[in-house]
């Protein structure tokens, strides 16, 4: 997604497709990588915002408040076999995100939803597409192959959910190059993985 006119400002969207998690922490990056890939391959109407939410926690509350429809991609630890995809809707979302504390941002995100609710602007429709993570503790690592494979399925589920909400993405004739995507500056998935030093290069 290039820098759109209202980027970062609140006007002009009612549907938020949000990826959350820390890119630097292996499968924790799943949510952000999904949204990065969705943006690379699809174009959406201007009322749909695709966002790399990172681990911003409470700082995302105004985007949540603004959204009538909220679709979240995230890596979750439900204690099920790695790679399992789950779709959770509506009031179930906060509970599912907090059923096991996995990382800093998760409790944070539950709080964000609660805060949006307390402020009287909970999204009317809310769906979480999550994957059971395999590896969360590889600092500087990327998605594990199994989890990376699940991105396609997660995106299909996401597109179907959006279609249910009356929103269709148009497939780009040519996918965006990684550097032109949502996550730039050498942090796009290809550059990120290519640039990782080996342990021996790090002297370990």
């Amino acid at each position, binding site marked *: 997604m290039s*820098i759109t*006119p*209202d*980027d*970062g*400002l*609140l006007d002009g969207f009612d549907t938020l497709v949000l990826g959350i998690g*820390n*890119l*630097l922490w292996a499968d924790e990056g799943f949510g952000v990588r999904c949204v990065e890939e969705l943006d690379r391959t699809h174009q959406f109407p201007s009322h749909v915002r695709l*966002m*790399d*939410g*990172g*681990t*911003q*926690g*409470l*700082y*995302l*509350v*105004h985007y949540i408040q603004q959204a009538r429809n909220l679709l979240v991609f995230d890596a979750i630890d439900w204690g099920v076999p790695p790679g399992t995809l789950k779709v959770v809707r509506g009031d179930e979302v*906060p509970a599912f995100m907090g059923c096991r504390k996995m990382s*800093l*941002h998760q409790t*944070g995100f*539950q*709080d964000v*939803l*609660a*805060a949006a*609710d*307390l*402020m*009287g602007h909970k999204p009317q429709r809310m769906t979480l597409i999550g994957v059971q993570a395999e590896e969360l*503790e*590889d*600092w*500087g690592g990327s998605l594990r192959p199994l989890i990376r494979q699940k991105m396609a399925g997660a995106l299909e589920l996401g597109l179907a959910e959006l279609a249910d909400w009356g929103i269709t993405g148009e497939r780009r004739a040519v996918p965006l190059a990684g550097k032109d995507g949502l996550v*730039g*500056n*050498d*942090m796009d998935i290809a550059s990120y993985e290519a*640039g*990782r*030093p080996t*342990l021996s*290069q*790090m002297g*370990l």
Partner: protein
Amino acid sequence: MATITTPNGYTLDNGGKRVVVDPVTRIEGHLRLEVNVDEQNVIRNAVSTGTMWRGIELILKDRDPRDAWAFVQRICGVCTGTHALTSLRAVEDALGITIPENANIIRNIMQLTLYVHDHLVHFYHLHALDWVDVVSALSADPKATSELAQSISSWPMSSPGYFSDLKARLKKFVESGQLGPFKNGYWGHSAYKLPPEANLMAVAHYLEALDFQKDIVKIHAIFGGKNPHPNWLVGGVPCAINLDGVGAVGAINMERLNLVGSIINRTLDFVSKVYVPDLMAIASFYKDWGAIGGGLSSMSVMSYGDIPEFANDYSEKSLQLPRGAIINGDLSKIHEVDLRDPGQIQEFVSHSWYTYPDESKGLHPWDGITEANFVLGPNAKTQGRNIESLDEAAKYSFLKAPRWKGHAMEVGPLARYIIGYVQGKPEFKEPVDGLLKTLDVPLQALFSTLGRTAARGLECQWAADKLKYYYDKLIANLKAGDLNTANTAKWEPSSWPKDVKGVGFTEAPRGALGHWIHIKDTKIANYQAIVPTTWNGSPRDPAGNIGAFEASLMNTKVADPQIPLEILRTIHSFDPCLACSTHVMGPQGQEVEVKIR
């Protein structure tokens, strides 16, 4: 059980009852505290432990220095911008890149925006709940709340109807059983002193601040192209300016700048009419905290300084935030701080889960080594994989122990205000004197938990004022015809020297932040950061000096060790952020679990 006296003047007694708080809630990152309390529940020994390990160098090695900012801003969900800016300064320092005037002003605006945002969010959303009892707010009288609000500020949202509606909403929310952001509170604790009306007013402002902070970050979105994760650029700022441009695509135009101006005005209004009056009102019920939690603040404080008035000039003369160090409690002398001098800033690991060839010595960050070595001391108590208590005589934290000329230092807003006060700078001294007078407390009360929290509020006001100043300066500069925002003369790596080192620093909202970089053959060869919470949360050093968190907890009386609200008050007053100081895994992939309740 032994009593020892530390070189920095604390008498530690590890007898009595050991109380463990893990994790400390409402902070970013993982922090564990262990204290020993005597029969009177007074803290006689304190142990601060970062329970996760991270090495920035592991992800930055061999990367393009021009992208380092994008990586460092992912380390943490809170101080993204200040890490990015520090990284740019380190790279520019190494490569000898200067930035244009407009870029300096816009970076100052970005950094000051972060200050206002971070301080506001810290006060209302992380720290206020240590002083404000949310459940008590439910028994407030809306009419009396309105009278209270109107007596302290002209802020318009203060009618009885407003507070009545809010109370109803809060009641419904609490009764629904989902306390959300209000969970983990010690509601009903005897140390909460505010009347229900003050609690209700504070909860109202908690929500208003949450709503308002979204406007402040728009400034980041405008100059950084997007938010979250705004863009930065080595050599300047990544935004072109065209005052006469129309529409919102591309360069920043006058319409966009007007929006920035209006956000700054509203920010000034909110800080001066809501945050500062709330701070004063709440502090007036907690004056006793002006004698608690001071720790190192009356002894050893340090600030690198920030907000350069002149582009590319990082000397004390140019920096608007105070720079210098005070040691041994001698307020008559401000020492110069040099981040390049190998003998000044050093990190020690004798009590940290790392290894050095010679652990009796410290290493300057340019020579820094980050090699994890997780071993527990002989007196640590473990239960399976859980650690019941650590052995602080041995290694006990994933934070290294940074020292300035061997001294443990406190950093942060209070350190900055103490240095500015001692320097006699009116913009720091006058607000402090005003605060002390309003609260009717002596200067000594500044060196405390109350002082730390108050300094942050005063600094928020300072930052809002400076935002206005730099905005006006930017507009004047642009109108005079200078539209340059970036220097790309040395953008191509082919123009770089083969082997160079650099250092960049900022004052992050929570304190002094330094990044040290070594660039070799156009790639990053080594990268070390010392973050504010490493200074404040540091473990002991080889000489036995305790760190700022540890010192701040000493001699505090805890009403009930099972619900140690007092510990949270003091530790939160530092605005700790451990995400960038720490991680969960050793480099060989072995699991390092330090987790208990």
